[in-house]
């Protein structure tokens, strides 16, 4: 028995599920979670809203048109992560190897468990346990690898479970449309459609050479996935790859002063998060999206640090280099990558011996009174006399 047993678990419309737990009046109603304004996007929606054609990542304006009676909520991300943690705790306590793929998705490697419990029985009991203890609805799929399990979960959603028996993977995948394969997004499925390929079955029978020629390296992976082959392991620990903050404006702007202040403010907040998580960053990138949706990013490698003054300077420098076309800006963002768990290395020749303890003191104030309690003066909103 060399076959693996991989379970994929996915919480059904997780954000909405949490909201419904907290307010039972929302049950059975179309609920949309996302930015309130017309320029926001849908980050989650209930199955009732989906009936109207609402999808996540859709502009809020369009979602409102499709489903005018939907209840729109801003979302409470702290609550979502605490519920996500509850689920994670239950699963990790019971399963041998668990990979948390996102806030509401888990892969479990149950290989070898069949000797003791029977994998399907065990997974079913675990799913029931999650439902019973958290009240959230969760779906799952079981097969010999991650891809097939994930597709199985997506097919049986919501509130279902599906077991794809060994050897039956290709038969299961064949009748599905190609876009059901996790790897295949809009662009790839469009290309495939142009080639006359709509179903996974067709894709699996295509010559490997042709796929490699059309899609490059990814072509082989596509072919493997279509044939239900996926050797990627369940990785129990996922390092946080980056930290980012983005902001979409109510109205597009070219006000460089305002933009600079926002960069300072966003970097300062991100630095606090960075230090709080005990990390330093080795790479900072700045993103600008113009009103025509052209998106440009620029990044800079730096010696690892978590100090405000270094990172603020870097972000402003990057922005200045990036923004040279006096075009209206729709969105700006900052991202820290190459995170390493580290403390701040003090420097001989800047005043870090004084500033770093200051950040430490400011962080303590923020821990106690909230992240808006103290900050640079440029962050003060003059009208409200508050830090924005």
């Amino acid at each position, binding site marked *: 028995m060399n076959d693996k047993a991989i379970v994929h678990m996915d919480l059904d419309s997780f954000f909405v599920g949490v909201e419904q737990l907290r307010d039972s009046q929302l049950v059975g109603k179309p609920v949309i979670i996302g930015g309130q304004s017309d320029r926001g996007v849908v980050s989650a929606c209930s199955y009732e809203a989906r009936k109207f054609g609402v999808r996540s990542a859709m502009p809020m304006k369009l979602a409102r048109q499709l489903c005018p009676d939907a209840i729109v909520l801003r979302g409470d991300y702290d609550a979502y992560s605490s519920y996500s943690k509850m689920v994670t705790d239950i699963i990790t306590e019971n399963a041998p190897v668990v990979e948390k793929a996102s806030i509401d998705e888990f892969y479990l490697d149950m290989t070898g468990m069949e000797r003791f419990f029977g994998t399907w029985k065990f997974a079913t009991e675990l799913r029931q346990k999650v439902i019973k203890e958290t009240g959230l609805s969760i779906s799952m799929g079981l097969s010999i690898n991650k891809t097939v399990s994930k597709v199985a979960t997506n097919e049986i959603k919501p509130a279902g479970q599906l077991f794809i028996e060994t050897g039956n993977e290709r038969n299961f995948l064949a009748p599905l449309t190609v876009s059901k394969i996790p790897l295949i997004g809009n662009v790839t499925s469009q290309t495939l459609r142009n080639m006359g390929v709509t179903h996974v079955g067709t894709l699996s029978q295509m010559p490997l050479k042709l796929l490699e020629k059309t899609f490059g390296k990814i072509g082989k992976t596509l072919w493997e996935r279509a044939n239900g082959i996926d050797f990627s392991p369940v990785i129990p620990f996922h390092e946080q790859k980056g930290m980012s903050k983005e902001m979409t404006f109510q109205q597009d702007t070219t006000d460089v002063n305002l933009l600079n202040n926002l960069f300072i403010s966003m970097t300062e907040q991100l630095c606090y998060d960075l230090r709080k998580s005990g990390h330093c960053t080795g790479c900072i990138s700045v993103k600008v999206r113009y009103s025509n949706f052209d998106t440009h990013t620029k990044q800079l490698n730096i010696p690892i640090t978590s100090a405000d003054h270094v990172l603020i300077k870097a972000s402003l420098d990057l922005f200045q280099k990036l923004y040279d076309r006096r075009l209206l800006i729709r969105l700006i963002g900052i991202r820290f990558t190459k995170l390493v768990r580290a*403390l701040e290395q003090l420097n001989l020749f800047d005043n870090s011996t004084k500033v770093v303890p200051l950040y430490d003191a400011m962080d303590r104030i923020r821990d106690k009174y909230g992240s808006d309690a103290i900050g640079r003066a440029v962050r003060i909103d003059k009208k409200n006399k508050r830090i924005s």
Partner: protein
Amino acid sequence: MKFVVSSSVLLKQLSTVNGVIANNPIVPILENFLFQIDQTQLTVTASDLQTVMITTLAVESSDTGAIAIPARLLLDTLRGLPDQPITFKVDRDTFGTEIITENGRYKLSGENPIDFPKVPQVTKSLSVQISADILGAAIANTIFAVSNDDLRPAMTGVYVQLSPEYTNFVATDGHRLIRYKRSDVKSEYDSTMIIPRKALNLLKSSLPSDDTTVTSDFSSSNAFFSFNNIRMICRLIDERFPDYENAIPQNNPNVLTINRSEFLGSLKRISIYSNKTTHQIRLKLAKNDLVISAEDLDYSNEANERLMCDYDGDEMEIGFNAKFMVEMLSNLTSNMISLEMSQPNRAGLIIPADKKADEDILMLVMPVMLNTYA
């Protein structure tokens, strides 16, 4: 133009100066060695515009003239040849060069020697005589702390402070600083300069390890070194070196005295368990008690060791980059060292307990900020 030279002698000399040649030089001519023949003397020059190295060797010839020869091609050829006299024949019009050996003939196209950049000449300068082993020690003791950060050019070289009483060699990357002081190297008057890392590395590898006298001349923009048959000229870094003297803390009441090799061994073992990119470790000090510890939270690795030591001062906890400490301690030879500190956010000074005559080493390392709460 024609000359005959021993292949092994030529290879040895070329290998010495080859280090100057950059991988992708700004001007293609710099991929060449400049050969200048003056009867029985061959002068070979290699340059990257910042650093120039010149060596001379004896050849058999009756001609005078010059040619630029592709460095990589020539070196690869010489490396593959058994030791023998070889003949170079140069066509002065086409710069075609033919190498005639017992094994066969090799033809390569040279370049016009006129295109090779002029070598700066010694003008109005300060001259200092330094023994090769002292200069070598000064470079070896400082160069590892030189910064790689091109955004801070002043720190990418060793700062040399010449004076009538002593000479300081100082290197720093902002996180640590080494001051290597020699009271047996003196100059007529005070002068300071920053010598770039590349030149010093080349110098270090070509310096003999005996007391050969190295004549060093310094003009306002260049440094000239000559010893045996080798000359080196490098452009100085025209920047202001940071005010390092004020960065050295004066009052350090907390003094740890410890056996260097025991401390070093412990740091090396503990740092295996620290984060692989940051190498951060922590020293916990109490009266005659030192605990070194590290943890890598990502992999749940952790280690700690308790060491015999002599500690006099306040109880404290201070964090350091173990890589810095290991590099510094490995460069010292003294049996016992002392680590002098004031506060957990101030620099620590490493000072060897037994000093050699004429030599004074001070090493300074900045700590990492330990979270006092969290």
